[in-house]
């Protein structure tokens, strides 16, 4: 094929050839320009890795150890008999509906965020001109208010005598208020709203570096607009799509605030259950076990999902 896209996804053994390179070296070697010497590599890597090791890995490892313990008297943590009991209990099928809720909401949120975010990121990049950064910042502006307050604002909009229902009844579409709040719909709406900037930003970053000359070249070669998009733009912006998916899906699985505020009786998420086990159940070992299972699931699921995406893009 004419263009081999660069791959910016996860766990790549090496970055792919640049787009300019690829045209000249179809199927050929991958050229790499290693960044200078070991000192530079050190400067780049050490701060981040060290920080994460000290302030993340070690503390979480402590809780990981706790997950093998058991709840002692007076809700303390007993590490006397380490076992896999908590993990076995965590596999209890009673959690399945809440787990499915989390997955459903996260998936819907991610897909919607991508679908909504991509065109707007494209618009800002292509037509923003000098005001590009400004437009981007305006997108972020709502997110510097409190998340909780914004979600409450959605309550005002969606409740039975809220803005939407008032309008619908005023124009005669319906005589009884439609139940919008405390449903799957309100949860997904709220979550998509909350995670949209997490999708728009990486998408924008990726779309912005796309050379419009390539699209123009494809059109010159008699590709239709749609074909140019599918075969040039989309693959080239795949790193951004992947980043956006990750930055949306993963936190969405852990979000329990939105389903709590905008949800109803049947919208509980697994994140809330984990929270509850720690706080209300005062059973840290059990909560930890369930939490780690969730982490494993999310991580595994994400890596699995990204794999096919990258392969489809071609080359790797």
């Amino acid at each position: 094929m004419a263009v081999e896209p660069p791959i910016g996804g996860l766990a790549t053994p090496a970055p792919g050839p640049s787009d300019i390179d690829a045209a000249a070296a179809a199927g050929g070697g991958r050229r790499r320009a290693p960044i200078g010497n070991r000192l530079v590599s050190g400067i780049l890597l050490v701060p981040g890795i060290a920080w994460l090791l000290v302030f993340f890995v070690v503390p979480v490892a402590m809780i990981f150890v706790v997950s093998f313990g058991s709840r002692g008297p007076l809700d303390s943590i007993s590490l006397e008999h380490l076992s896999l009991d908590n993990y076995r209990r965590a596999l209890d099928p009673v959690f399945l509906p809440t787990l499915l809720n989390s997955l459903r909401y996260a998936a819907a949120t991610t897909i919607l965020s991508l679908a909504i975010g991509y065109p707007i990121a494209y618009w800002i990049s292509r037509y923003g001109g000098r005001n590009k950064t400004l437009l981007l910042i305006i997108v972020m502006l709502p997110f510097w208010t409190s998340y909780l307050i914004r979600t409450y604002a959605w309550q005002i909009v969606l409740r039975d005598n809220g803005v939407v229902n008032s309008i619908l009844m005023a124009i005669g579409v319906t005589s009884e208020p439609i139940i919008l709040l405390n449903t799957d719909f309100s949860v997904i709406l709220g979550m998509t709203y909350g995670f949209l900037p997490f999708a728009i930003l990486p998408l924008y970053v990726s779309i912005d570096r796309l050379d419009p000359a390539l699209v123009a070249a494809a059109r010159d070669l008699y590709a239709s607009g749609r074909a140019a998009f599918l075969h040039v733009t989309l693959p080239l912006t795949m790193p951004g799509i992947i980043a956006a998916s990750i930055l949306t899906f993963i936190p969405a699985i852990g979000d329990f605030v939105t389903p709590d505020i905008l949800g109803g009786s049947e919208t509980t998420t697994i994140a809330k259950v984990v929270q509850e086990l720690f706080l209300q159940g005062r059973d840290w070992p059990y909560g930890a076990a369930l939490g780690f299972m969730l982490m494993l699931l999310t991580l595994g699921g994400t890596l699995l999902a990204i794999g096919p995406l990258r392969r489809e893009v071609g080359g790797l």
Partner: protein
Amino acid sequence: MTHEHDGSTIDLEQALDRYLLERRITRRQLLERIGAVGAAAALAPIIAACTSSAASPSPAPSASAAASAAASAAAPSPSAEPTPVPSPEAELNIYNWTEYIGENTIPSFEAKYGVKVNLDFFANTDEAYAKLGNDGGGYDLSFPISVDIPAFVAKGALLELDKSLIPNLKNLGAEWADPKYDPGNAHSMPYMWWTTGIGYDTTKVTDTPTSSKALWDPRYAKHIGMLDDYQEVFGLTLIQLGYDANTSDLGQLDEATALLEQQKPLVRVYTTNTREMMSSKDNWIGHIWGADIYTIQESNENVLYYIPEEGGVKGSDTMAVFSGAQHPIAAHLFINHMLDAHVSADNTNFIYYMGPNAAAKAFIDPAILSDPSVNPDQEIVAKLQELIDLGPELRDEYQKRWHQLGR
């Protein structure tokens, strides 16, 4: 027991509400005016309104009660200080619910003793307990729920109170002198108490329900609110089935779970924000705490409260000093301050919860005192059950079923 308002009370209520609505002030603001301006001036229009309409006996006693309350504000009040007054530390760290204390309580304490109070807020007790840990987590004083006191004491998390620094404890009602959760009030002092029951919007619920079964009524499908607290919800259901609210009989618990499963499709929301539950008009009937009725009525005046005829739950919370407290003297003086009759009344008048303070009753807004949602008769209260600390194994059983319900 009557929850219905007899004719005379309704007149006063209606007149009061009309008066308030015209002037766009809340009941609380009215109380402040009473204090500032004097009962006669503030209540005169109401009295005029009442006497001009059907003559009824109650406005007069209420007016004079309010008048005497204002008058006795000038007279010496039941508030004592330890002698000699110890010098407190420079600061005090308190961890409390938001707006769960009178507006002037802390400023007046700060002014009186020259102590700087650092107040942090929490949103739910479980989170707060995790933060407080085994010695207060940096806080001197907090407000644990009474059922949790035994667990805290067993962990050694609480200081034994030095009663000589709390002479105001004589203001406590007799029934609070020796509570089951903390014999002799050795480690805590009661703060507020409440009942849990049912609130309903009279514009949507046309009959007058008296049973907790009203929360299962399919006519209100998707407009029912329940508390997001498994002990309260199971408590309500178990009592409805005629069992103990804290039963350890798993068979009974399963029965309750089945009943709740039936209810689930009818429930709109599970939340502890009762004000929003009932104010937003998305819910027509809800499982709420009685004292919240005032804040609810500020937004939706059509909501009434009742305790189910099958029986209900009551609860209370406490003030306790933690073992890691850096400022124990200030903490004790603060507790003493809170037990002062005036301060306790101020707290009640602001947050609308009833306190355990007998001496404070003279200064509490009579509208609150006579309101059965906040202050039901003692004989009713005596029949209510208290939620107790279930202990880890039983708690697990309850929670397992709570998870089964999809919570």
